[in-house]
C-alpha cells in the first residue's frame, strides 16, 4: 500500500520526518519498505499484513500513527446540501443474494461536469501511483485510498430501466470489463446488473458500457459490502486483481460505508458541480453489531510475561479507538470498532496492547526449566554417515526434489508404482517428485564437468517419494557418485556398513537398470534378505567421457540396523599365522562361491579370508583364472602348531577342489 506523506498529515498533527514516521510504523507492525521523494511529497511503501484491511486506507494508517505517538484524528466532514428529489425516483435496487452482499447503498449525483480533477488531488494520486483520469473517477479512487472502502461510480443514464439487481451471474453471461476485455461469467459469481445485463462484477471490476466518460451527466454511486471469500474466489477465477478486490477480500469496514459514500458525493458536488439527490438506497441484511470482549489483565500479564497495569492497557486500547465499557479490578470490558474485523478474541486484544506497548519494551527473560535432550538414533546415524564420507573426501550436495519427467527421472529402484506428479507445476522442468536421487547427482556431476571440476566425489542424503495409501511413503536415501571403479565404491560401502556396526549378512546380486547402470556392472545389495540399495558403474548412455560409479542406499534401513553398542573382546595373546594361496578355477566361478566353500570348512581358528588378486595370463589356461587370497589363522588359547595350519590349509584346498574344481597354483 502506497501512502503520501503530505496526505497523511492532513488527518493528524505530528512532527515526524518521513524517516521517523517510517520507523514508528515499522515498529507498530506496518513495515515501510521504501520511501521515495515524489515532487514536493514522499511516497511511503507500506507492507500491510493480510489481517489488517483497516490499514488499506490512509485514515487507517493515521490511526496507527496516533496510537503510537498520540494526538487527535481529524477526519474531513461529510455534510452537504441536497436536492429535494428523492433517490428512489432515479434508481431501484434489489439485492437477490444478501449472503454475498450483506449491505448495498446507492446515491445519485446529477448534472456533474466531467473534467480533470484539481491539481491538489491529482498530485496526491500521482504520488501513490494512481493515474488521474477525470474528476469523477479520481474521486472514487481518492475516497478508496482515504477510507479503504472501494466505491464505484456508474453513468446513471446507461443503466437500463433505472434498475440495479445484485444477483448471481447466469452461466455464460458476458461482460466487457473497464479494461476492455470481454469475459464470460459463471453462476457462482456475483454481479451488479441492470434490467438487461451485468454492469459490474461485484467487488472486482466495473463494466465498460456503464463507466463514467466525458459525456456523463448523472452519477450512480455504489458503496457496498461484499462477502470477502466470495470476492477472493471470483477474482482468482477470472484472474482479475484490482485495488477493489484486494480490499474486499480482506474485509472492509461494515461501519464505514455511509461515511465513504457521503464523502464521495460531497466531493462530486465540490469538484464536479454535481447536485446531490436526497436520501440513499440502503439495503442491509442486519444491523452491524460491535463485538464486545472481556480482557483479563492477569491473562495479559501471563501471555506477555510482564507486569502491565490495567490503566496502561486500557489507555492503549483507547488510543486504538476501542471503547472501554467497563473497568474493574482485573478486567476491562472492551468494544471493538467496526473497522477492526481482525479482533474478536481476548488474545487479539493482548496482541494489540503488546504491539503498541512495544515488543522491544518487553524484557527478554526466561525461567524455562532444564531439560535434557538426546539425539534420536536416526540423527546419530546421519551425522556419523556424513562425517564418514567427508573424511573420505566426498562433498555433500543438495539437489531439488522436484524434477522433470525425462526417462532418466522415471527409474524405479524402490517401487513399481508411478511417481507423483505436481498438479500445478511452474514449469515442466519441475513437475514430478523424484523417486531416486541418482539422476540429480548425475546432473550435478555434469554441471561440475562443464565448469572444469573433472573428478568429483559427491553424496546426498534426501528423501524420495513413493506412492502410498493416502500420503506417499517418503524414504530417506543416501546416494553416492564417485569418479572411481566399481570395487572402490563397493569397498567404501562395505566399510560404511562395518563402520555403522552392522554385522548382518550382505549379499551382492546382479542387477540391471540400463538407464542408470552399465550392464553387468551393477548390483543390488541385500542385507538380511532385504534390499539395502544399489551400486553400479554409470551407464555409457549418459554421455560422459570417463566412467564413474553410482550407489543409492536405503538410509532408514541403515539407521535401523546400525549398532553403536560396543562390547570389548579380549585380545588374543597368541600370534596369528598368515598363509597366501592362489587357486586356478573356471572363469565362471565367483569369489562368493570360493568364500562360502572356505567358510563351510568350519575351522575354528580360521579368523579371516582376504582376497587380493585375480590373474589371467600366460601360465593360466584359457577360460580359467587364478584367484589369490590370504588366510589368517589364530587360536584364542594357544600358539598354533605348523602342522595344524598345514592340515587346515589342505582341508580348505580339498574342499575347493571337490566343490569348485579348483587347483592349487604352483608358483
Amino acid at each position, binding site marked *: 500500500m502506497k501512502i503520501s506523506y503530505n496526505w497523511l498529515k492532513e488527518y493528524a498533527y505530528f512532527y515526524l520526518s518521513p524517516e521517523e514516521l517510517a520507523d514508528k510504523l*515499522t*515498529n*507498530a*507492525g506496518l*513495515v515501510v*519498505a521504501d520511501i521515495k521523494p515524489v515532487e514536493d511529497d514522499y511516497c511511503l511503501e507500506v507492507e500491510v*499484513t*493480510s*489481517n489488517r484491511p483497516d490499514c488499506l486506507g490512509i485514515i487507517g494508517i493515521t490511526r496507527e500513527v496516533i496510537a503510537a505517538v498520540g494526538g487527535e484524528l481529524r477526519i474531513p466532514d461529510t455534510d452537504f446540501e441536497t436536492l429535494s428529489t428523492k433517490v428512489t425516483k432515479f434508481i431501484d435496487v434489489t439485492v437477490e443474494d444478501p449472503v454475498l452482499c450483506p449491505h448495498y447503498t446507492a446515491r445519485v449525483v446529477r448534472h456533474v461536469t466531467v473534467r480533470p480533477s484539481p491539481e491538489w488531488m491529482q498530485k496526491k494520486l500521482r504520488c501513490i501511483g494512481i493515474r488521474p483520469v477525470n474528476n469523477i473517477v479520481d474521486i472514487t479512487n481518492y475516497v478508496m485510498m482515504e477510507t479503504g472502502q472501494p466505491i464505484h461510480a456508474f453513468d446513471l443514464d446507461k443503466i437500463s430501466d433505472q434498475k440495479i439487481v445484485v444477483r448471481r451471474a447466469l452461466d455464460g453471461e458476458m461482460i466487457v470489463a473497464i479494461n476492455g476485455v470481454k469475459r464470460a461469467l459463471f453462476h457462482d459469481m456475483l454481479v451488479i446488473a441492470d434490467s438487461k445485463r451485468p454492469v459490474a462484477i461485484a467487488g472486482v471490476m466495473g463494466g465498460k458500457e456503464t463507466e463514467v466518460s466525458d459525456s456523463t451527466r448523472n452519477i450512480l454511486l455504489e458503496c457496498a459490502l461484499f462477502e470477502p*471469500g466470495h470476492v477472493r*474466489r471470483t477474482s482468482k477465477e477470472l484472474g482479475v486483481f484490482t485495488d477493489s478486490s484486494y480490499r474486499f477480500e*480482506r474485509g472492509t469496514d461494515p461501519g464505514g460505508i455511509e461515511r465513504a459514500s457521503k464523502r464521495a458525493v460531497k466531493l462530486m458536488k465540490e469538484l464536479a458541480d454535481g447536485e446531490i439527490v436526497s436520501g440513499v438506497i440502503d439495503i442491509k441484511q442486519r444491523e452491524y453489531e460491535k463485538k464486545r470482549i472481556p480482557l483479563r489483565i492477569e491473562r495479559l500479564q*501471563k*501471555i*506477555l*510475561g510482564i507486569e502491565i497495569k490495567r490503566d496502561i492497557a486500557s489507555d492503549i486500547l483507547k488510543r486504538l479507538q476501542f471503547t472501554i465499557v467497563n473497568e474493574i479490578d482485573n478486567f476491562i470490558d472492551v468494544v471493538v470498532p467496526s473497522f477492526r474485523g481482525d479482533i474478536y478474541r481476548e*488474545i487479539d486484544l*493482548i*496482541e494489540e496492547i*503488546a504491539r503498541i506497548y512495544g*515488543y522491544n519494551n*518487553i*524484557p*527478554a527473560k*526466561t525461567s*524455562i526449566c532444564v531439560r535434557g535432550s*538426546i*539425539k534420536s538414533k536416526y*540423527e546419530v546415524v546421519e*551425522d556419523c554417515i*556424513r562425517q564418514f*564420507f567427508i*573424511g573420505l*573426501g*566426498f*562433498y*555433500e*550436495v*543438495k*539437489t*531439488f*526434489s*522436484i524434477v522433470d519427467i525425462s526417462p532418466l527421472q522415471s527409474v524405479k529402484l524402490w517401487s513399481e508404482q508411478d511417481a507423483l*506428479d*505436481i*498438479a*500445478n*507445476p*511452474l514449469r515442466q522442468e519441475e513437475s514430478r517428485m523424484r523417486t531416486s536421487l541418482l539422476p540429480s547427482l548425475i546432473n550435478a556431476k555434469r*554441471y*561440475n564437468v562443464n*565448469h572444469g*571440476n573433472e573428478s568429483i*566425489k*559427491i553424496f546426498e542424503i*534426501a*528423501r524420495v517419494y513413493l506412492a502410498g495409501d*493416502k*500420503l506417499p511413503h*517418503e524414504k530417506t536415501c543416501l546416494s553416492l557418485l564417485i569418479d572411481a571403479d566399481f570395487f572402490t565404491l563397493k569397498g567404501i560401502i562395505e566399510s560404511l556398513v562395518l563402520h555403522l556396526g552392522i554385522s548382518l549378512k550382505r549379499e551382492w546380486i546382479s542387477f540391471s537398470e540400463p538407464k542408470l547402470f552399465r550392464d553387468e556392472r551393477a548390483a543390488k545389495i541385500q542385507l538380511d534378505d532385504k534390499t539395502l540399495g544399489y551400486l553400479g558403474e554409470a551407464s555409457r548412455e549418459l554421455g560422459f567421457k570417463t566412467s564413474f560409479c553410482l550407489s543409492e542406499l536405503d538410509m532408514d534401513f541403515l539407521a535401523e540396523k546400525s549398532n553403536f553398542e560396543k562390547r570389548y573382546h579380549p585380545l588374543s595373546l597368541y600370534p596369528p599365522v598368515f598363509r597366501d594361496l592362489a587357486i586356478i578355477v573356471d572363469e565362471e566361478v565367483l569369489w562368493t562361491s570360493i568364500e562360502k566353500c572356505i567358510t563351510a570348512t568350519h575351522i575354528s581358528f580360521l579368523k579371516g579370508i582376504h582376497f587380493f588378486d585375480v590373474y589371467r595370463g600366460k601360465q593360466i589356461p584359457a577360460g580359467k583364472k587364478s584367484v589369490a587370497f590370504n588366510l589368517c589363522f589364530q587360536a584364542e588359547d594357544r600358539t598354533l602348531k605348523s602342522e595344524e595350519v598345514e592340515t587346515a590349509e589342505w582341508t580348505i584346498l580339498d574342499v575347493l577342489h571337490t566343490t569348485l574344481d579348483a587347483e592349487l597354483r604352483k608358483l
Partner: protein
Amino acid sequence: MLKKTEKVKRDLQEEIRAVTTLKDAEQLKIKYLGRKGIIQDFMKLIPALPAEQRAEFGQQINALKAEAANFIEEAIGKLSREAIPKVNNEIFDITLPGKLPLTGKKHPLTQTIDDVKEVFARLGFDVVYGPEVELEYYNFEALNIPADHPSRTDFDTFYIKNDILLRSQTSTVQIRVMEKQKPPIRIIAPGKVYRPDTVDARHSFMFHQVEGLLVDEGVSFADLKEVLNQFIKTYFGKDVRMRFRPSFFPFTEPSAEVDISCSLCSGKGCSVCSYSGWVEILGAGMVDPHVFKAVHYDTEKYTGFAFGMGVERITMLKHGISDIRLFYENDIRFLSQF
C-alpha cells in the same frame, strides 16, 4: 690451576664461535675431549699434585670436561640441524608441497542446520521430522489458515491432488507432534518446504526451514524473546542486536518478525539490509489458541511459542552469499569454501 681451566674454557668458547662446519666441530671435540686431547692432558697432571689438592683439582677437571662436552654437543647439534643431508648428491627439498589427503565438506545448508540444532539441543529441544508431502489440513486448516482466506496468498502451494500438497512451511510438524504428545513440548523441526516461486537470485521453489515449538504451563512472550536472544547471540555473535516487530501469522498471536542488526555494515545501512541497518531472520509468536484447539490442548492451562527461520537466508547472511541458486548448483568450487 683454576686459572688454567678457566683459560681452557675461554679458548674453547672462542673456538666454538669460529666453527662453521660439522667437520670442524668434530675436530674440536677430538682436540679437547679426545684421548690425547687438552683435558686428558690435565688429567695426566693429577698424580704429580700434592695429595690434598688432587681431589679438588680432579673435581675441577671433571666439571670442565662436562662443560666442554656440553658446549661441543650443542654446537654439533646446531650445525647438524642446519646441515642439508645429502643422499648421493641429491638435495632433499623440504619445501616441496606435502601430499594433501582430499577431504570433503558438509553442504553449507547442512552446516547451518547442524549449528541451529546444536544451539537448541543445549536448550533442551529435541529434533523431529515430518512429511514433506502433506495433507492440506496440516498445512492450512489446523494452522488456522482457512480456505478463501487472504492469508493463503502468503502461502502459495504446489498440489499433488485435491487435498495433498507439498508443505509450504515446517509449521505442519507442530501439529503432528502435538496430536501425538501432551505438553510439555520442546522441539525443533528442520526440513524442506516448497512454494511455487520462479527461481532467481533470491527465490527458490524449494528451500529449507527450521521450526521451533515450546509448550508448557506459564510460557510467555518474554520467554520467547530470551530463547531467541540466546540463539541469536550464540549463532550470530554476542554483539548482534535484535529487534522484534509486530507482524501477522495465522498460527501465532501475538506474532512477531525478528530482525538482527546487519553484520555487514554493523547497522549503518548497506545494500544487504536495504539501508535500514536491520535484516529479518525469523518469524515467531505465541501459539494461537486456534492451533491449540485443533490438537485439543487446554488453552487456559498451556501456552507456548513457536518460531521459524529460513535456512538459506541465514546461511546467505552469515557467509555473504548473494545468490540462492549457488546452493543447488553444487559447484565443488562453491562447496569447498565452507
